[in-house]
């Protein structure tokens, strides 16, 4: 990928690869408008950058390498993959535990909304069910035909 390394003219240890050296050379020429004075000035700017880039604190490279070598091993892939699922399961279990019914006694008889007590319109008929009288609407006892009220007479 890259060319051989040499000593840079600016004091750096590593020569930039050939292709990239060409890139910087092109850049210097492109930004100098083919004027020798600007070309020389661009080279001076480049030299300052290269010199600054070549100066790193002593031991920095070794310290960073040591930190790379001593970094903790990455978690096995299984745990990395399973971590979200495990977290989700933990949330679900916590939700079940926190939302489960408390120890208070639950009433055995739940309100029956279909009962007649809750429907006043049917209250009379309902009472007939519980009063022991057969609600046989066809019988003469319970079905009273009032001709006056029925026909408006």
């Amino acid at each position: 990928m890259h060319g051989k390394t040499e000593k840079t003219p600016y004091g750096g240890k590593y020569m930039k690869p050939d292709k990239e050296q060409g890139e910087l050379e092109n850049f210097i020429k492109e930004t100098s408008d083919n004027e020798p004075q600007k070309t020389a000035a661009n080279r001076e700017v480049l030299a300052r950058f290269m010199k600054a880039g070549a100066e790193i604190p002593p031991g920095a490279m070794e310290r960073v390498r040591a930190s790379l070598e001593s970094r903790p091993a990455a978690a096995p892939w299984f745990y990395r993959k399973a971590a979200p699922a495990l977290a989700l399961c933990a949330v679900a279990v916590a939700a079940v535990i926190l939302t489960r019914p408390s120890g208070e006694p639950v009433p055995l008889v739940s309100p029956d909304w279909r009962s007649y007590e809750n429907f006043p319109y049917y209250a009379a008929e309902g009472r007939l069910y519980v009063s022991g009288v057969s609600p046989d609407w066809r019988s003469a006892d319970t079905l009273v035909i009032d001709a006056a009220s029925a026909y408006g007479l």
Partner: protein
Amino acid sequence: MDFAGIYEEFFRRIYAYINCRVGLQAAAEDLSSLVFQKALARFAQYDPARGSHAQWLFGIARNEVNYHLRKAAILKFIPLDLFGDIFPADAAAGPGPAETEARSAALAAALAELAPKERDLISLKFYSEMNNREIARLTGLGESNVGTILYRCMAKLRKRLTGVNI
């Protein structure tokens, strides 16, 4: 190329890029370490078809620097003297310490005058040495836009550092 080879080839460039963006050597070292840790963790996922090693590593570095700058909120409040740490005096052969320090201070001042985007692009250009198309792909800018910004940036640096006017 194995990871050790990539580390040897790119560490200085990544460090220089981060140092240029952040301006603090300690932060640059920490961020460089973070960049290479992430690169190592994702090394198996690296796909050469999607870009070179330089694009990949500088993409990680750029994201880390941007995150660091946002988090620390120092982007708009970088004092000029913070750049003094970027370019320590070189006691080796060449110009004397005083002269080197003056050159470093001049570069630091010139960098501090650039907008954050310009500083990002010019340091990417010099240290990653990618072409404008690769930088455009990395930064999400247009290729011509990158070229224009870099051209203006070089004009500013030229004027500031060498006195050669546009």
